[in-house]
């Protein structure tokens, strides 16, 4: 079961890398929620930088073509650290390290874009694993020009 959970996390990153947003959302439960957080030592507060339910994510993805976005490909490198299964339910808490690299379209220079950790909640039903919740806790706070696509 652990390998199925790990593969779900890896697959979610591969699909986002490929801008297969429909495929990404298909991995998620109907009550999926995605949050990006970062702690600011400057104001000594936790900050929410993105917080969407599944409908919000879908809308975000659908409006992307209407916006002016950086076309540079982004590559997510993820390592699953821990998978902790609930003792009383078909759920698992997954902690993974995430590094995101951006490759310039012109010339192909790759640079580190962001590092952080993914805190995923995965549910298992009918032999299928699905992403119920994702919290990305970013260590990187200077994201340069930023991104329209969640990491």
């Amino acid at each position, binding site marked *: 079961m652990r390998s199925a959970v790990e593969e779900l996390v890896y697959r979610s990153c591969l699909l986002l890398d490929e801008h297969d947003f429909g495929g990404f959302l298909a991995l998620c439960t109907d009550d999926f929620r995605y949050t990006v957080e970062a702690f600011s030592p400057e104001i000594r507060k936790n*900050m929410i930088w993105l917080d969407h339910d599944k409908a919000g994510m879908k809308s975000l993805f659908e409006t992307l073509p209407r916006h002016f976005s950086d076309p540079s490909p982004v590559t997510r490198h993820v390592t699953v650290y821990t998978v902790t299964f609930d003792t009383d339910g078909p759920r698992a808490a997954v902690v993974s390290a995430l590094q995101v690299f951006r490759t310039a379209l012109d010339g192909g220079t790759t640079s580190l874009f962001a590092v952080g950790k993914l805190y995923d909640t995965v549910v298992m039903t009918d032999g299928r694993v699905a992403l119920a919740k994702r919290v990305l806790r970013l260590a990187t706070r200077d994201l340069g020009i930023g991104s329209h696509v969640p990491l």
Partner: protein
Amino acid sequence: MPRTAAEWNERPHFPRTHYVDARIYTDWDIFREEREKIFARTWILACHESELAKPYDYRTFRHPAGQTLVIVRGDDDKVRAFFNICSHRGSTLVNAPAGNARTLTCAFHAWTFDCRGDCTGISRRKEGFQERLESARVGLRAVRIERGPGGFYWVKLEDEGVSLLDYLAGALGVLEPYLAEPLEIFHYQKVRLRANYKLWHDTNSEFYHDFVHYFNRVTGMQQPGYFGRKYETYPNGHASVGSMRVRYDQYQGGTDRIGWPGLEPGGWFLVDLFPGMTFNLRTSVLRIDTAVPLAPNEVVVELRGLGLRSDTSAQRALRIRDHNAIWGPFGRNLHEDFLAVTGQGVSLRDDWTDARWLLHGREETNTIHDEVGMRHFYAEWSRLMGRSASDPFVDGSAE
């Protein structure tokens, strides 16, 4: 029709107030001179009072003139600013960007200072300095600081000169009715961009670039009232933009916003303050930009998002949602603004520019796509620099 090299370099057929020489964005001598003649002499927004809520809270600030400051709320509740350097050997006094400390201790040789800037401890003083050094002569370097509208603290490196109120010259007047309630910061981000600081402030000073923002086109430009928004200019290079009713529901997935006390639904005021600060009250959130130049082609933009201190957790969550939708690191507009301005930074780069002139020539009776905000900025810039922004090196090239 494409132009030859000679034609490319010809001055635009506009009044000199309506374009600038691109070298003002790339030249190192001009950059150094800006630090001395502009940033060291003008009031600069450093932080908000909610970043220093309790006695002994401190906050560091990299000043656009180059110095690093530490701002401290004293035991007497007074907020003071100092150079963030130890009087002994110039080491950085406070390393964390914020914290709370009754004593500021230099880690290098353990000298200590209090929240009023007094030196309170010199390690092994008698053994080494005997009676030759008095603590009173090695206090911290104080910096003028004043609290402005909305509870923001502003600093000025010069001991003399105009008050903050005189410097603002009424520019924040359009916002003051909405800044009466105590505010609280919920978002802070520093972003390092490859672009000149003025290019960032230019972007905040003109709305013609709404063409880059799909969000602003459907919720603003295509709605009644947009082209009626007017610029007002104020002494010292400041400008403001009047409000309209933004239709957030016109964007897919958009909803009405929580609003702001006294502000009309969907209302949006913006004030640009010379030389690089912007107050942007957009319906439910106040955003503050402070540009801190590091080099001709490098700027750190400090971005703050604020709500009301009286917000319930549910209200605050809505303000954060509204903020992030367009202004967060993954928001619709911020990324587009950054792409646009760093696109300028590619052609106007380190000590070189492919662009020759930048046009600020739109005249639309001071309404939203008029470029009067930028023209007003560069008139003040030229005055303080003693150089014309359109002819900074008096090179005598033909009109």
